[in-house]
């Protein structure tokens, strides 16, 4: 049998898909910003000399590493209203799920980057009389940042792809819009091929940006 490809019903509904693409970018951008903040706090806690700070952060990270993301989405959207009587709109629930989850992963990226800085660098800074804060700000973090770029980009790509799960909360991101288009056109092959291509273009553009950023950060090498 030969399938008759026909993209025209899909392409005529491009405003729907564009809307979805923009919403995907929006939710990803918000989740990355909050994820980075959550990740920084967690990384600082995990690097603390105090066990009472390290332990809760470690539990948080392990929880998110070892549970599927869709469970986090459902939990924020369906469980929170029952437990705390807080009802969230799909965007907020999705951002919460994404940024807490990616925060846990970002924390490991930050922690790994900081731990990878050789002892000699810490000592060189200390020997000049720097405080812990000064040596982190001036010596450790700037060097660690360059080593974090690659794993950070990797995690962010995972996050962007995970935004597709927000469709399960009826948030109008790219996949959800595709489902809408599909229900109108009954052209799943064309719809999901188009969507795959849109994700591909989005992520390839992001990785080009990331390469520019990495080149700038590592210019001194």
């Amino acid at each position, binding site marked *: 049998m030969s399938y008759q490809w026909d993209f025209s019903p899909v392409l005529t509904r491009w405003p729907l898909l564009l809307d979805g693409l923009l919403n995907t970018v929006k939710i990803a951008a918000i989740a990355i910003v909050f994820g980075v903040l959550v990740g920084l706090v967690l990384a600082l806690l995990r690097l603390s000399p105090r066990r009472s700070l390290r332990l809760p952060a470690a539990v948080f990270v392990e929880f998110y590493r070892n549970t599927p993301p869709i469970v986090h989405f459902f939990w924020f959207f369906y469980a929170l209203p029952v437990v705390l009587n807080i009802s969230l709109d799909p965007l907020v629930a999705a951002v919460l799920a994404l940024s807490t989850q990616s925060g846990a992963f970002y924390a490991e990226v930050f922690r790994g980057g900081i731990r990878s800085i050789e002892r*000699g*660098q810490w*000592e*060189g*800074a*200390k*020997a*000049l*009389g*720097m*405080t*812990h804060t*000064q040596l982190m700000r*001036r*010596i450790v973090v*700037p*060097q660690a940042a*360059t080593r974090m770029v690659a794993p950070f980009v990797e995690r962010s790509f995972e996050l962007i792809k995970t935004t597709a799960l927000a469709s399960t909360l009826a948030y109008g991101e790219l996949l959800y819009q595709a489902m809408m288009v599909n229900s109108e056109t009954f052209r799943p092959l064309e719809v999901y091929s188009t969507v795959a291509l849109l994700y591909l273009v989005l992520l390839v553009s992001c990785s080009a940006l990331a390469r520019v950023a990495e080149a700038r950060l590592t210019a*001194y*090498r």
Partner: protein
Amino acid sequence: MQDPIMPVSILPASQVPAPPILQVSGLHKWFGTLHVLQGIDFSVAAGERVAIIGGSGSGKSTFLRCLNFMEMPTSGRIALDGTPLGRASAGKPDEVRYPESELCRVRERVGMVFQQFNLFPHMTVLENAMEGLVTVKRMKKAEARERALRELDKVGLGNKTDVYPGRLSGGQQQRVAIARALAMEPEILLFDEPTSSLDPELVGEVLRVIRQLAEEGRTMLLVTHELGFAYHFATKVIFLADGVFHEVGTPDEVLKHPRQERTRAFLERFTEFSF
């Protein structure tokens, strides 16, 4: 063999004994169950140059690193200019607490040069030399730059200011590290095997800089395997073995006429293959 290092012109010792600038009493250091420093009492007068020699694992680097608290002493006290550092807790005189602010102030006054240089690779040579001045001493950039340039000139690298350390030879990197420490105008300089990771042909340029500092009358402590340099450089030589000062004296006493059998055996290993 031609020795590139000429003898230091030793400054005449003053008639009045100078009060110690650095005083160590009852210093012990444990690493887990390993007793690395086993009770050291020691003092340095301003202008003294002390060379510390000893086999690997003797504790000589650990001793030096305790003096600017790169390692925390397990017990014992260190006094700088007559002021004991840290606060002994009430009832437990052995437990000394060191607030970070105090350690930072001490490290500003006691500079250190490391075996592995530990330059900051993301900063240029000039930025490396300025870093302590700007970040720690909060000096204005222009002023810090001027002082950093002066120190870089002194170590012969005034023409490499905008280069990143990764582009320099080991000897050049170590000279930048010396300039970085000097810029802070420390009262005491600690050198932890400053030439041990250098190719033999680069050792001379670093030792020459250290000798120049000696001629300025700076107070310095040097852990080294360069016994020839130690002989010419030091006003006092310490042979450390098993975590104690085994023999202490002038370079002539310790290096040429050692009284202890152990010192003699150590020195013989160095001359075994000389020609």
